[in-house]
């Protein structure tokens, strides 16, 4: 069963909007997160300078991406980390399976990794008889529920305590129903401790991969990320190729932007920098560390200098926390791995516009995401670009995206041609607007567009006279 699917967006939206519990869960969570973030950036000048810095660091890294990837590989290899390259999720999955098989691993414990969600790794390993166990509390909950994360930072944000209490009670032996968050957390701690001890391998994502030193950086609060990268004898890190940064000194700014934007924390509990497997004489740490670099469409996104900006993303999730659409429909409605504004631009680029035809239109272009993005990704501009691509009327852009023209409609194009003809010619505009002010109100409610509009609104009323006519009557100069 694959959970990733872009089709039937509207069906899922319909369901989500009707789910009052879900709506309330998201509203409460997003309000909280927006408030916490705001407290972190009360100094407008510091925010402006820091995000300019963050943007320049990511842009610089992307500008030399191939070179940095090679440097990363070279330095990792020097440090004893094995580097693997994967063009597709299938390749990445096979690489990981092979590593696990060679160590006869039965269970792999996982830290949070959105890339592994992209790969549907758990599912894949399960099919090959290897159990992949999520250890991040939110991911643990979501996995138990047989769902996907609904948020890239807080995977179980769509659920409330009651739902989680029931889930634990139903799935864990001898677990009484409890809505106490501390108790629920303690239950997970107890369940997972033994798993960390016994697992044959640990798997994690990467927040920043430092080319200069061959260092893999992980950001987390719980300690599960440290557990999976330290206790089992093998550690496999998976990352998208865009996560590489040039220098170690590039990391502090990005780290600060990431944690403050994501959850409103000055820093997370743990910032874990891994540069090698266990060295001679060291008493703990994995004996092998592997790094899997996944492309999965990223190099195509990279080809176009406009869409390239998408790859600046540091996965803080601030865009979704501030998105009025995400707040209403939640993460699962998007159907892809990455929900919210970043998902709206990233997913169709990775998977194709034809696979996710509604994503670009599901935005009011309110720019709330653009305002908070810590690396200044022009999300709204990208959405407009994707709409151009969707309609197939895309004279710009160096490379067509997969599925260009997915929403192309002869009728709609003709409609816009008519609109343009009317508005580009003063004489036609005058005739048309005069006519509309006389008879526009006779349009039936069932007319195209009006039907959707009037589902919750009254019909807009054309004025008897246009402003053009009134301005003339006022004697305003026309020149």
């Amino acid at each position, binding site marked *: 069963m694959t959970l990733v699917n872009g089709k039937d967006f509207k069906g899922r939206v319909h369901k989500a909007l009707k789910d009052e519990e879900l709506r309330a869960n998201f509203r409460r969570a997003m309000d909280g997160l927006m408030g916490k973030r705001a407290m972190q950036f009360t100094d407008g000048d510091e925010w402006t300078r820091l995000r300019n810095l963050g943007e320049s660091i990511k842009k610089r890294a992307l500008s030399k991406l191939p070179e940095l990837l090679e440097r990363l590989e070279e330095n990792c290899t020097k440090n004893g980390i094995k580097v693997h390259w994967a063009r597709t999720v299938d390749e990445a999955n096979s690489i990981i399976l092979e590593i696990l098989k060679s160590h006869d691993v039965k269970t792999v414990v996982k830290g949070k990794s959105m890339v592994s969600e992209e790969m549907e790794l758990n599912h894949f390993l399960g099919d090959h008889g290897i159990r992949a166990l999520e250890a991040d509390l939110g991911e643990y909950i979501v996995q138990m529920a047989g769902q996907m994360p609904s948020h890239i930072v807080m995977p179980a944000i769509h659920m409330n305590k009651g739902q989680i209490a029931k889930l634990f009670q139903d799935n864990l032996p001898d677990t009484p129903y409890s809505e106490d968050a501390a108790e629920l957390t303690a239950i997970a701690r107890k369940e997972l401790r033994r798993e960390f001890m016994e697992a044959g391998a640990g798997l994690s994502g990467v927040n920043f991969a430092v080319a200069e030193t061959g260092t893999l950086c992980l950001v987390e609060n719980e300690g599960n990320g440290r557990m999976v990268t330290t206790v089992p004898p093998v550690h496999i890190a998976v990352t998208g190729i865009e996560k590489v940064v040039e220098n170690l000194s590039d990391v502090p700014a990005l780290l600060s932007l990431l944690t403050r934007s994501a959850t409103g924390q000055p820093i997370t509990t743990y910032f874990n920098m891994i540069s090698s497997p266990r060295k001679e004489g060291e008493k703990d740490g994995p004996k092998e560390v592997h790094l899997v670099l996944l492309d999965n469409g990223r190099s195509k996104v990279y080809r176009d200098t406009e869409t390239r900006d998408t790859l600046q993303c540091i996965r803080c999730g601030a865009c979704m926390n501030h998105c009025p659409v995400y707040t209403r429909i939640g993460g699962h409605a998007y159907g892809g791995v990455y929900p919210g504004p970043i998902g709206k631009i990233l997913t169709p680029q990775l998977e194709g516009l034809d696979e996710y035809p509604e994503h670009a*239109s599901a*935005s009011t272009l309110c720019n709330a995401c653009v305002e908070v993005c810590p690396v200044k990704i022009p999300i709204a501009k990208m959405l407009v670009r994707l709409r151009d691509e969707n309609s197939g009327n895309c004279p710009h852009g160096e490379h067509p995206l997969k599925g260009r023209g997915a929403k192309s409609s002869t009728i709609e194009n003709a409609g816009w*041609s008519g609109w343009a003809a009317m*508005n580009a010619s003063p004489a036609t505009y005058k005739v048309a607007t005069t006519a509309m002010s006389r008879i526009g109100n006779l349009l039936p409610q069932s007319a195209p567009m009006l039907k959707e*509009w009037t589902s919750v609104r009254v019909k*807009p009323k054309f*004025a008897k006279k246009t402003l053009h006519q009134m301005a003339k009557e006022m004697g305003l100069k026309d020149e």
Partner: protein
Amino acid sequence: MSRTPIEKPKSVYFFGTCLVDLFYPEAGVAGIELIKREGVEVIFPQAQSCCGQPAFNSGQRDKARDVARAQLDLFTKDIPVVLPSGSCAGMMFKHYPELFEGDVDYNKACALANRVYELSDFLLNVLKIKLTDKGEPMRVTWHGSCHSQREMGVRSQPKDLINQLENVELVELKRETECCGFGGTFAVRQPEISAAMVSDKADDVEATQAQKLVSGDCGCMMNITGHLDYRKSDVQGLHLAEFLWERTNDPR
């Protein structure tokens, strides 16, 4: 990020916008009257139509450019162009340079973009208008459009103007900066999401117990008041210009 204030000009252009032209001409007239009362001449080029935003945001860039191009030659004097809409102002100010990148008319587009002002910003920061309230005591709330806030840097200006009115109590809307769900064609392409957003906005509006909802953008207004009327709410929506003019002009 609001526009750099300039010296008070002798005359300005007024770009009415297509929504005002067709649905809310009184808002346009009120805006013009407010400017004229400050001793500034208002020029209204009759050949103007639409800024092009509907097509620009709908994946129809070439058609947006055709319509935008038709506006470029109408506002050539070096005087401000004032719009009673943050969204249309944002289109010209922020997106015209993008839309005409690499085009023969690029310089013209930039020149126009640089002279664009949103009405409330212009009244407050350029004309330095002082309002004398002549109306009855009233409770109102304010909805700022996304584009006026995030593309034009118009955040406090409209509220500062409303607060100049002695008899008006301005009640802040909960989640004031959140989008109302209009988004142009979004309202009809994603009608269910739009409906959920406007319904939440209307709840917040009603919770203020304001008599009027004042806004500076007719798109938001058409959406929010369209829904308020649909649910038979008592709250009336109107454009900031109309509200300010109503309360400060000498009754004829």
